[in-house]
């Protein structure tokens, strides 16, 4: 007989209690894992940011445009490798609930700056050639069943009217962190239409994407760009892509903090539940622990039995919870892909799950162990019979 076998046998003495505790831990770890994944999904854009990309926008607010004429001026700044631009379109596909990011962009430089967007060469060429064409992400195309050559109509909100696009390309992400639910089309198409319908809004862009030659130059280049347009009609604010994306997240920081708090509360609750189980277990077996001590087992052995049992139960629960996290996350991702284009269970989440489970197991065993180790043998034996 091995001590581990005794721990195993002890763990299943009260099958219903153990089963319910394992179930509780599984659900808690599943919920914790999903909430951590939601938080990761929130930061996915930030994680996918490149260190060599800058975003230049209107210093007042992102909703104010910048003149197209800035492009050449920015391009000439020392350290700048490439410049492209885009404008948020905000079109609606059939119904408002079908939300996805859609924007107009200058295609050639934009796709060069974003090498993580993988488009087959023939589709890329077709997209460049056709001004009324668009490219959709793989997940977005899958969601609506779009194929190459399909016509997609978006109802403009910022730019009124029905806008028709022909899907010429479907991009895939180079890795899991790339959003595959975006839709983009030629800025020229938008601009030409604006020239006809609202000339005052023509030749304006929402933001510039600036690629620098060396990530170390981002600070200098940012300062130079903003300095160049200081005291102009449209002053600029240039920041790294990461900072730009973080500024969006900061708007919903309170929600993220609330989710984080809820995830910790879940762990705290299950810690108390497991502690209760272990306290009941230890109270019932206090006589047995006294017998162990009588036979010469030390406090360390008794502690090992209680900690072992607590960790065993929590690790089974955690393993089930972790295994369930993956299919649950897939369902979650499908249902909420409009809000969380990237919803992947990260390795880090699993590590945190395991650490949390260990913490639950250890914390739950502390008090029962303290009682079992401290009790005098004579007092413990008196509890039997």
């Amino acid at each position, binding site marked *: 007989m091995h*001590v581990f076998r*005794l721990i195993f046998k002890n763990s299943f003495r009260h099958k219903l209690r153990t089963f319910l505790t394992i179930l509780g831990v599984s659900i808690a770890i599943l919920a914790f894992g999903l909430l951590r994944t939601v938080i990761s999904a929130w930061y996915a854009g930030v994680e996918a940011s490149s260190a060599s990309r800058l975003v230049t926008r209107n210093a007042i607010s992102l909703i104010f445009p910048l003149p197209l004429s800035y492009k050449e001026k920015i391009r000439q700044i020392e350290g700048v490798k490439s410049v492209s631009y885009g404008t948020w379109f905000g079109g609606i596909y059939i119904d408002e609930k079908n939300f996805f990011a859609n924007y107009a962009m200058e295609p050639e430089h934009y796709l060069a700056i974003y090498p993580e967007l993988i488009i087959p060469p023939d589709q890329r060429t077709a997209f460049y050639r056709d001004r009324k064409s668009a490219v959709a992400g793989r997940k977005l195309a899958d969601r609506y069943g779009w194929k190459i050559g399909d016509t997609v109509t978006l109802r403009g909100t910022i730019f009124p009217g029905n806008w028709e696009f022909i899907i010429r390309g479907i991009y895939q992400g180079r890795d899991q962190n790339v959003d595959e639910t975006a839709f983009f089309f030629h800025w020229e198409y938008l601009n030409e239409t604006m020239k006809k319908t609202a000339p005052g809004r023509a030749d304006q862009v929402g933001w510039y994407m600036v690629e620098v030659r060396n990530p170390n130059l981002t600070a200098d280049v940012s300062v130079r760009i903003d300095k160049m347009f200081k005291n102009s009609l449209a002053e600029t604010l240039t920041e790294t892509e990461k900072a730009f994306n973080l500024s969006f997240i900061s708007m919903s920081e309170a929600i993220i903090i609330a989710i984080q708090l809820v995830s910790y509360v879940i762990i705290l609750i299950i810690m108390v539940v497991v502690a209760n189980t272990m306290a009941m277990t230890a109270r019932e077996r206090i006589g047995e622990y006294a017998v162990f001590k009588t036979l010469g087992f030390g406090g360390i052995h008794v502690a090992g039995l209680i900690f072992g049992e607590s960790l065993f139960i929590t690790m089974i629960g955690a393993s089930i919870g972790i295994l369930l996290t993956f299919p649950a996350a897939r369902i979650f991702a499908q249902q909420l892909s409009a809000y969380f284009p990237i919803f992947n269970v990260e390795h880090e989440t699993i590590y945190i799950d395991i650490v949390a489970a260990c913490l639950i197991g250890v914390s739950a065993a502390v008090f029962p162990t303290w009682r079992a180790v401290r009790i005098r043998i*004579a007092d413990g034996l008196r509890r039997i019979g």
Partner: protein
Amino acid sequence: MTGKPVIVEIKNLYKSYRRGDQILPVLTDISLDIDEAEFLALMGPSGSGKTTLLNLIAGIDKADRGVIRVGGVEITTLSENELALWRASNVGFIFQFYNLIPVLTAFENVELPLLITGLPKGERRAHAEMALGVVNLTDRMDHRPGQLSGGQQQRVAIARAIVTDPSILVADEPTGDLDRVSAIEVLQLMERLVHELGKTIIMVTHDPRAAQMAHMIKHLDKGVLNARLQADF
């Protein structure tokens, strides 16, 4: 005295318990020598201090004053950890309610005290099987306590008590939970351990018939010891 070497030597032992502000004396100035291979019965009314004296001799409780030497070791000066190690190799315990671990088989229960001895698995198995052989329960070694009768459980407990080959066995009401036939079997087995294996047994009992099996009966009353030698010894 039997003329054999003394294995347990108790001198001027005092023990009291605190209950709230009150201090209740349990044992008062106990002095006692127990020889090797002796079968001693401790009798007395409830609360007379029998179990307390047994616990002190077995090293599972601490005296207020006095000296206890077992096999030449003054156990009253040992620390908790030293006592645990000492108990593991020198004392075997037999309890009224057997105190077997219900999820373990008879064999595993007997093997339990050997887990802390560092013996390899094969030797542990040999020792446990031998101990079960002594109590004549080799055919029940894979049964759990719940599948055994009270008498069989107590015999498993005796096998567990002797598996480390301790010099003394302490038994607290070993027949208290048994029917008459099982009680006699257990007592006869204990007698065999004394005669054939040379174990020293100190048994606390309320049962005069159980005490009759002992070589010597000591009476405790209000913490004071009175001796009575068995006629047939």
